[in-house]
């Protein structure tokens, strides 16, 4: 995986399990109801790619999209 990653949380799917926030706190933030949003525009800083994939593969609602740019 050489390209930069971009993540997005699908707000229709997220139910606030907060697994992503626990696994990759640098990449996700939670709103007042505990639902997750990507930090900033979702660009994954270099070095955090593994965490992005880890969050994606542990979301019970399959609400996290990871795209290689």
């Amino acid at each position, binding site marked *: 995986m050489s390209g930069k990653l971009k993540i997005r949380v699908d707000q229709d799917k997220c139910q606030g*399990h907060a697994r992503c926030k*626990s696994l990759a706190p640098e990449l996700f933030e*939670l709103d007042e109801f505990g639902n997750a949003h990507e930090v900033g525009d979702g660009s994954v800083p270099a070095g955090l790619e593994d965490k992005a994939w880890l969050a994606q593969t542990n979301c019970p609602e399959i609400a996290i999209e990871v795209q290689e740019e």
Partner: protein
Amino acid sequence: MSDSVSMMPEHPPVTDWVNDFDHTDPRWTENPFPIWDELRNECPVVHTKRFLGCYLPTTYQAVKEIAYDTEHFSSRRVIVRDVRPEVTRNAAPPITSDPPEHKPAKQLLLPPFTPDAMKKLEPRVRAICNELIDEFIADGQCDAAARYTKHVPVRAIAHMLGIPEKDGDLFVKWIHMILELSIKNESMLVQAVQEMSAYFAGHIEHRKTHPTDDLISTLMKAKDKDGNPLDDSQVLGSLRLLLIAGIDTTWSAIGSSLWHLANTPADRDRLIAEPELMPSAIEEFLRAYSPVTMAREVMKETTISGCPVKPGNMVLLSFPAANRDPAMFPDADKVVIDRKENRHAAFGLGIHRCVGSNLARMEMTVAIEEWLKRIPDFKLDPAGKVTWSEGTVRGPRQLPVLFGKKN
């Protein structure tokens, strides 16, 4: 405690699990995993005529389809019982709500249970754990279910609600009546709900003249979606839900985790040597020993994973069985404390995701961490007997362990 009622004539021992399953059968209570494997090999959705008709999905896929389908499956009844109690009497929004009522009811409860809110509660839970351990550590043995795992969630939720932690025994009694005894005796449900409502009504009344900064006052100050304050019955319903959903469940989850660690010295030693594995270990305990099975009621005919499903029946929505599905989890029957991919459904899937999941995780983590710090070496007491709760929530109710010089 449940053995005597299991002998009642309307629950004869199961001889045909595929066509006549019974989640209150003593063999299911003791060790449900081989039963689920047998059923899953047979069909993704099985049916029993017991409980006035009930389906059981056993695959992750079937459980997920039902959890996401609020059109055909209602949450108005979430416990499978011998009878179908009137729905309004036991409403505990949002767990018993369907869309569109569900979302506003749930949004009222979510803010006090975010991970950040739980961080503020964590020091008190850590202190509770150590106060409990102080009471028995010198004995070299204890029933960990009765002396430890039960009291952690009871005291934590009492602390959050702003009610005396010593009232915990009352809560445990009501919850046992509602979740276990009432499956076969409806009068237990009625009595427990009445007692619980009277207890909380007193606390609500007191706060009308003496406001506090606890969760009861937060709920009393909350506004519904139209900006109106909740009436007393809505506050009571929420409090009933938090108590019922917040105690047996986490008691069970902490207990099953300790039971596993008592049986598995290698995992215990590894967790002590590599504490950074704690988060993945907690998720794995939640997957492998998921405590909670919710229910749905079929409202309209449909098919689930190719199986016809008819209205009038209940559904035992077995997140625990889904989490043991080998099609979803490699080595599903093994506990792998550093499992990397783990989309377990212990807290449900879809709109009814457990409101208290962040609280439960925090309590589990703190309770296991503090236990391992103080009692790193322990084992099941061969002279004692581990017993498991029956029905909706599964976890150890007696967990005799030896440690220290008695180990």
